[in-house]
């Protein structure tokens, strides 16, 4: 192909830019293990409301200081409606839906995942800044989509009644 000098220059630089993009994605996903939540676990949506963890969705503090949060995303609320978690600790979210698809987004963080009936969404993150965060549903789920939200509070000391150190694992 007789592409003149300019074409060749442009093609190589386009290729170069794309190579940089690819390299940065490989680097961040391998070296910093920055990966999208891709947990594979199924659950029956018909009985999700009585399944372990989701019967009374809540925050469990583990012995090592980390926490596990079970969340039920349903038309049109997140249960529990308020979540308190410790600052600077690994927080594992486990979520499912008994009805349609919802989105779980902790505003202004990269905590963002789809919640799909029949599946458990799980990811682990950390919050270094204490304060109140807004959680919104970001996938259209019906007439009440825009009223579906809850609150996340990150604190230095989280006192939990009862199940401190129960270590739900996971």
């Amino acid at each position, binding site marked *: 192909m007789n592409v003149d000098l300019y074409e060749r220059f442009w093609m190589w630089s386009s290729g170069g830019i*794309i190579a940089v993009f690819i390299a940065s994605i490989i680097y961040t996903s391998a070296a910093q293990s920055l990966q999208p939540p891709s*947990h594979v676990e199924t659950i029956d949506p018909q009985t999700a409301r009585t399944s372990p963890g989701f019967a009374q969705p809540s925050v469990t503090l583990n012995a090592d200081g980390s926490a596990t949060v079970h969340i039920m995303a349903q038309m049109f609320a997140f249960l529990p409606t308020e979540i308190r978690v410790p600052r600077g600790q690994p927080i594992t979210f486990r979520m499912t839906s008994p009805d*349609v698809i919802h989105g779980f*987004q902790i505003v202004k963080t990269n905590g963002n995942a789809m919640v*799909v009936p*029949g599946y458990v969404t*799980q990811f682990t993150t950390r919050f270094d800044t204490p304060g109140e965060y807004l959680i919104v549903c*970001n996938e259209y789920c019906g007439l*009440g989509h825009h009223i579906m939200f809850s609150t996340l509070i990150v604190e230095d000391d989280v006192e939990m009644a009862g199940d401190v150190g129960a270590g739900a694992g996971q």
Partner: protein
Amino acid sequence: MIASRRLALANFWVGIGAFGIASVMALMQALSRADLDLPWRTPGMYYMSVTAHGVLMALVFTTFIIMGFGYVVTERTLERALVGRQVAWVGFWVALAGTAAAAVAILTGNASILYTFYPPLMAHPAFYIGATLLVVGSWLWCGVILRTWLAWKKDNPGARIPLPLVGMLAAIFVWLLATPGVAAEMLFQLIPWSLGLKETVDPVLARTLFWWFGHPLVYFWLIPAYVVWYTVTPRVAGGKLFSDPLARLVFVLFIVLSTPVGFHHQLLDPGIPAGWKFFHTMNTELILFPSFVTAFTVVASFEVAGRMKGATGWFDWLEKLPWGNPQFSSVALAMLIFAIGGFGGAINAAFGMNAMVHNTAWIQGHFHLTVGTATALTFMGLCYWLIPILTKRELELGLLARVQPYIWFMGMLLFSVSNHLTGLQGMPRRVYEFDYGGSPIAQEWAAGTGISALGGVFLFVSAACFMAVMLGTGLAGKKGYEEDIEFAEPLEPAGDKARILDKMWLWVTIGVVLVMAAYAVPIIQHIMMDTFGSTGFRLF
């Protein structure tokens, strides 16, 4: 003049009509997002309207314009009538009937599930059946053009495929690689499920099949726009196409790379292993390449035009371009907007950064730049060129046509930039309002949504100008306009260069192999897994 003039026109008019209706819905939505207290404003109305707007713009307007343009390109470049024009008419009516069925379901409030129709939200069966018929009609369109091309090929052994047709064939092959995904979703999942013949569907499988179709869909929108950029606009600008072989390369790369990328829309889905998401993301990066090359070639063609008109300096060729001609300005502005959209797209596709923007207002800011402008504004320019030729009537209201692309451009900058920013501030997309219990975080978004509403008003005014010009031309334009359809000539014809790019079946085969590699294993793995289906929900 082409033999299937009326057929092409029929397709154009349906596309233009869909655009007009969807623009009215767009105005209501844009105002609604600014939280104005309007009497008709209810959540039910809003979500119905967004569904109608999304379907009419993204699926109906685009598909019909592309079908009409496809017929024009085929007959004009091959200089022969379509083989099987009756079949083409059948395709038109099937697609139109399907559109009507889906539209009735939506407008009666029985299908407010948005144009992505993710189950377990369940619409009336007429919505799914109608949408399927639209696709079936488009398949007949593909068949007619392919048959005509093959007949020509038999009669002209060894002739180069005309460049505009190479682009159209690429769009057709991308469409044929993409639509089996959504067809499977409709036929095996959504239609039987909505009819009550099947109790449950697996929502992750449905999303996978949808995005198998959903991402190449954007190239189906884009490739015909590229055909305009490469083979129409350089001539309008008064110049020549910079490089014919490079344009062929771009179209062929789309055939190969468009489809094995769908998981990049599902990066945040559960139930899909990270490895597959990674593979699709890599392919996504590769498909940036043809667009980078296009940016260069087309801008270089404009420079050629400016220089042919006597420009000698670094940038004075820009002044020599026909900015007052809407056939040119609409495309040039569409390209400018697309360049901005390209940066955003690279962020969306980045594995890690995607989580910052997924399903936020950023996304609607993004796709109104790409399909909503790069494609839509280009198609408006295409209409300014072809509608007078096809109707044999002079363009009416030329002044409106001249300002319309600029109003769109300004409106889109306001609309899109503000949506990108509110998206970064965490505002979700597709929400009727954003009070969230009086949350102070949500209140920060109000400034942005206000600006986006203002942009929406500009866009609506521009759309109204376009509709006025089209209807004015079609109904009252002065008769007797006679002009032939001419495409841009290349600086250097392809000649014998890169003949391998004409071997369409080779590229289609590679495309099929890549689709298999990208989807066969994950879908089979998924079907083998013990999953629980979902029953339908209707809360709208």
